[in-house]
């Protein structure tokens, strides 16, 4: 047994010696303080981690206050008009993939209202009141529609509206605890993961509300993402009947697959022994899958799977510190760069590296707290990042990803990272 192993085994006992267990002398005073506070009613809390049921009963449409959405649509058009020339100068990728113009930031406020933020100046607006009961907004790839992920405590439909609030549609079925919602390349379908009879499954629903299907993969799913060709990239249990739990897929028999959008043609790309990925992100040209490998001795490393040639390789990145971890990584909209989180001894940062590898650049401030979140702007030139700073406060930044260093903090406090609307893209051509 090594010195470290001996020491590690003794840590629980040592901790008890460092901090003996005893009822603290402030206990009675603490109870007096708690008694002075009133309890918040249960209905005032957003529900989390709810057990999920799926019903197949489609719902009828309801009226919707579309006027605020008109304001949203007009603002988005103004923004798009100002950036059309920029889009035209970018490398061409099959629509709706590739860089787009930056639209508005969308999020659901704590009171249930749907809110927008103009990233150019931080101007906020309410686009739908909380009384409408809409969920978390998730814009389509072409930026013309919004899917709302339900947050209610009872099964509820996924609502889809036009960007102006028109054509409100309920997807077939009612759902709770929807995860990983992803629009298909043609925005005609939406794939998401839910729990069905105790097991995580992929549901694909037509965006027009006509039907929904649970994909029959005969195994538990951890994550799914649409590839540009319409197939699904899937992290799932390697064998039928096995589990790939959401808690920690890297310690379970989870493998990497692709499948047809109806669940047929399941093809294993990487076995559970070969694959210990925390997530998967397809390149916008459809030739690669990016994931973060987490294996003993190689914790948090960027890997790329070649969908064309079938090979897998560690992304060659220069300049990493001696000790570091990565957890999440995404291709930029044009596929030229990769955004990732860099955990290192001297302070954590978001970072960007060319998608072929090479030197990386740290972007934005050092993380001030736990679990910041970030994602690419539609134009691929910046990154939207939210840094929790303690309690319920946070900082929202638009970080420059091109190296000019012109980061901008938005003076708005949001409860989570907003979705960034893409504009100026034609879908399904």
């Amino acid at each position, binding site marked *: 047994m090594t010195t470290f192993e001996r020491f590690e085994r003794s*840590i629980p006992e*040592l*901790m008890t010696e*460092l901090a003996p267990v005893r009822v603290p002398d402030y206990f009675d005073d603490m109870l007096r303080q708690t008694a002075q*506070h009133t*309890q918040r009613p249960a209905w005032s809390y957003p529900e989390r981690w709810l057990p999920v049921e799926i019903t197949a009963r489609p719902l009828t449409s309801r009226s919707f206050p579309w006027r605020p959405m008109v304001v949203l649509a007009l603002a988005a058009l103004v923004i798009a008009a100002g950036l059309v020339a920029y889009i035209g100068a970018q490398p061409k990728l099959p629509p709706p993939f590739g860089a787009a113009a930056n639209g508005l930031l969308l999020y659901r406020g704590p009171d249930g209202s749907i809110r927008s933020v103009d990233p150019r100046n931080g101007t906020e607006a309410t686009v739908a009141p909380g009384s409408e009961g809409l969920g978390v907004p998730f814009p389509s790839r072409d930026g013309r529609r919004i899917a709302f992920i339900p947050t209610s405590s009872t099964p509820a439909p996924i609502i889809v509206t036009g960007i102006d609030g028109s054509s409100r549609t309920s997807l077939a079925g009612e759902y709770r605890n929807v995860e990983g919602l992803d629009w298909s390349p043609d925005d005609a379908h939406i794939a998401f993961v839910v729990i069905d009879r105790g097991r995580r499954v992929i549901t694909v629903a037509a965006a027009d509300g006509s039907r929904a299907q649970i994909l029959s993969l005969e195994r538990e799913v951890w994550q799914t993402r649409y590839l540009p060709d319409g197939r699904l990239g899937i992290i799932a249990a390697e064998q039928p009947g096995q589990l790939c739990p959401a808690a920690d897929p890297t310690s379970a028999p989870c493998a990497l697959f692709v499948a047809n959008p109806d669940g047929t043609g399941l093809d294993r790309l990487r076995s559970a022994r070969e694959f210990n990925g925390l997530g998967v992100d397809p390149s916008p040209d459809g030739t690669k899958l990016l994931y973060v490998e987490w294996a003993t001795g190689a914790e*948090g490393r960027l890997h790329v799977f070649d969908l064309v040639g079938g090979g897998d390789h560690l992304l060659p990145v220069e300049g*990493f510190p001696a000790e570091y*971890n990565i957890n999440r990584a995404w291709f930029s909209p044009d596929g030229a760069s990769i955004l990732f989180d860099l955990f290192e001894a001297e302070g954590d940062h978001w970072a960007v590296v060319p998608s072929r590898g090479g030197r990386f650049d740290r972007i934005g401030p050092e993380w001030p707290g736990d679990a910041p979140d970030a994602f690419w702007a539609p134009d691929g030139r910046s990154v939207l990042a939210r840094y929790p700073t303690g309690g319920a406060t946070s900082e929202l930044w638009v970080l420059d990803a091109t190296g000019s260093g012109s980061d901008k903090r938005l003076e708005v406090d949001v409860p989570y990272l907003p979705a960034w609307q893409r504009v100026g893209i034609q879908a399904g051509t």
Partner: protein
Amino acid sequence: MDQRELVLRAQRGDHDAFAVLAGLFVARLDAAARLILRDHDLARDAVQDGFIRAWRGLPSLRDPDRFDGWLRSLIARSCIDILRRRGRRPIEVELTSMDGPSIDDASHVTADRDLLDAILRRLPPDQRAVVVLRYYFDLEVPEIAATLRIPLGTAKSRLHRSMGVMRSALADIDPEYAPLAKGQLA
């Protein structure tokens, strides 16, 4: 009256039931807070703040059987919040070699305890919380992530780095110990 019934009563506003629940858990949570914060006064503030939040927010707990994990989460996050609000940096303690090897068991344990104390003080609060949850509460990484409401990978990273700090600290103390090879290449 079992714990579940106490939780249900407390959710309906029975503060006496909440007081019984608090009595069941406060000692261990106070100890955990002292391990994370390494300061008695801060630990008191964190535990008091956490229990106030627990009392106020108890109606939001959907599963009464998850009360202890839910309470632990509140206290752990309260500890981290307090340190961030105070702008505390980990107390830098120089890990010098201890005074000679000792053949006395009690002396050896004392040295290990002091070493652990020094290591905990060296860790930033985020990592310290992860280490305490892992070794004091014997939680697995997914449970740690859920407790702190951080992504799984973040919890993995923080624990992994904490282990690295520990190994380095031990290497400073024990010249015969070979730490993990540095310079992991991308």
